[in-house]
């Protein structure tokens, strides 16, 4: 039989409190910023929202940013935004296509070997761009797993530039296979997206952007749920998305 004393020491009768410590307790803030997924930090959110507002103002005034086909963005659920890449402006423009409230759920995949290579870049990429560190040289599969996990949570947006790097000429390069492997056999929608004028406004190698017009054209979402799991399907997805992005030039109907 339990003595009254035992009952008292067993607590208040209610269930024990459940503590759920943060996963990155033994890491410094910078280490946490460099990792992924990142936990929500009020201070980081505040900085990102403020910088997002400034960024929009700058893009709309200096680059007269125009966003077409915004109605094609799926309202809820996670999806991948697939775009051509020729400038540092690209990710900034694409992020600006979303509402400020959704900003913290939009993750441009960024080359870890560049954007997370030192302390300053890590802080900048994580705080202001909300970048997902993507290891394009090694651990490619591991990075894809991180992307898949991100997309399994509803409401997240992943921005991917399947060319893998900025095009120097402004022409669209061949899409790498990662995007195909990510999307094959899943119901996650892929939204093709064309960036125009970014390469002229801020080409690779230039320090300061020029005040040229930039346009974002968003196409209709597509998914590759029913394709067979073969290498050919992966290539097919890449070709399809590349074609879709190419066709989204101005003058054509984005739908």
């Amino acid at each position, binding site marked *: 039989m339990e003595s009254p004393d035992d009952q008292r020491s067993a607590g208040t009768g209610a269930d024990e409190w459940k*503590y*759920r*410590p943060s996963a990155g307790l033994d890491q410094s803030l910078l280490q946490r910023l460099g990792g992924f997924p990142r936990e929500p930090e*009020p201070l980081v959110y505040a900085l990102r929202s403020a910088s997002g507002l400034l960024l929009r103002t700058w893009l709309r005034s200096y680059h007269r940013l125009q966003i077409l086909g915004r109605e094609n963005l799926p309202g809820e659920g996670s999806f991948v935004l697939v775009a051509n890449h020729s400038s540092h402006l690209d990710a900034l423009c694409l992020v600006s296509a979303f509402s400020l409230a959704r900003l913290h759920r939009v993750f441009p995949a960024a080359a870890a070997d560049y954007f997370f290579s030192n302390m300053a870049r890590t802080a900048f990429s994580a705080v202001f761009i909300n970048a997902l560190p993507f290891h394009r040289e090694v651990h490619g599969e591991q990075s894809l797993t991180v992307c898949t996990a991100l997309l399994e949570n509803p409401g997240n947006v992943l921005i991917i530039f399947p060319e893998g790097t900025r095009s120097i000429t402004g022409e669209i390069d061949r899409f790498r296979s990662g995007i195909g492997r990510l999307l094959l056999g899943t119901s996650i929608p892929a939204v093709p997206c064309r960036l125009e004028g970014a390469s002229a406004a801020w080409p690779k190698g230039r320090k300061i952007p020029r005040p040229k017009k930039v346009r974002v054209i968003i196409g209709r979402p597509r998914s590759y749920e029913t394709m067979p799991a073969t290498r050919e399907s992966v290539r097919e997805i890449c070709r399809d998305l590349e074609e879709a992005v190419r066709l989204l030039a101005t003058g054509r109907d984005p739908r």
Partner: protein
Amino acid sequence: MTVDAALSSEILRFYAALVGSIIVLAGLVLFVVTVVFGKDIRPIWRTYRGWLIMTPLVVGFIIAGRTAVIVGVCLLALFGFREFARATGLYRDWWMTGVVMVAIIGVAAVSIASDPRIRTPGWYGLFMALPVYVVGLLLVIPVLRNRTRGQLQSTALAVLGFVYFGWMFAHLGFLANTSHAYGYLLYLLFAVEVNDIAAFCFGKLFGRHKLRSEVSPNKTVEGSLGALAVSLVLPWLLSFSFPHFGTLQLVLTGLIVGIGGQLGDLTISFIKRDIGIKDMGAVIPGHGGVLDRIDSLIFVAPLFFHMVRWFYGIA
């Protein structure tokens, strides 16, 4: 407390020289141990580097004056509370953590402001009354949000977070409003660290009996008593820090630092052990989190402050 007053303060000069020589001496000892005896003591060097950065920072804030000290204490309280929130999981509730953080800044503002009635620096009345309003506000949050699930735990953690890590610790900042600020602040900071180190050394040398086996298995009765003995002697050695103190006040100071410091340490220990973590964070390399460093001060500062206020008032 102004920069000029700080630079002409003999107490500050003494403590700066004392701590400076201790750091240089400790560095030499570590150097000899590493180079002459060839021992690998990299973790100790890491802790030492932490001190090399922290000590000048603390002295710098004290030289910079009253407002700087209060702001510095406020920043430590904010970081400390953040660690507590991250460790307990409270940080997922942005309302609770947000209100507590604003309240901690509010405590600092009240410490900096002057009493509108008697125009002395530091609004003591509101400083003491603030927990009433903050606890009230925290209790109202679940009502306003129309939520019940887990809210008792959140509110309780937030109340503890504010009252202990925010408000009780803020008494250290409020000491900057007193007329013997340099002596009080520098003595407390120094004595609390000495107490910690003494407990560690006595424990290592003579430690046989566990002090609190469940809470902190590495602490011993011998270490604790040794630290208390050192802390009781220290006020007499450094009595020029508070020349107006009589025997009673010197003894009380020794008891507050000697007992309170160790209780503060054990308090954080039981919190960590209940949650099941080792360190509160990783902000200071070689020291763990902010709370692992300031744990003793949180407990000692309010006890010392109210002892001083009882006998001598604030100004």
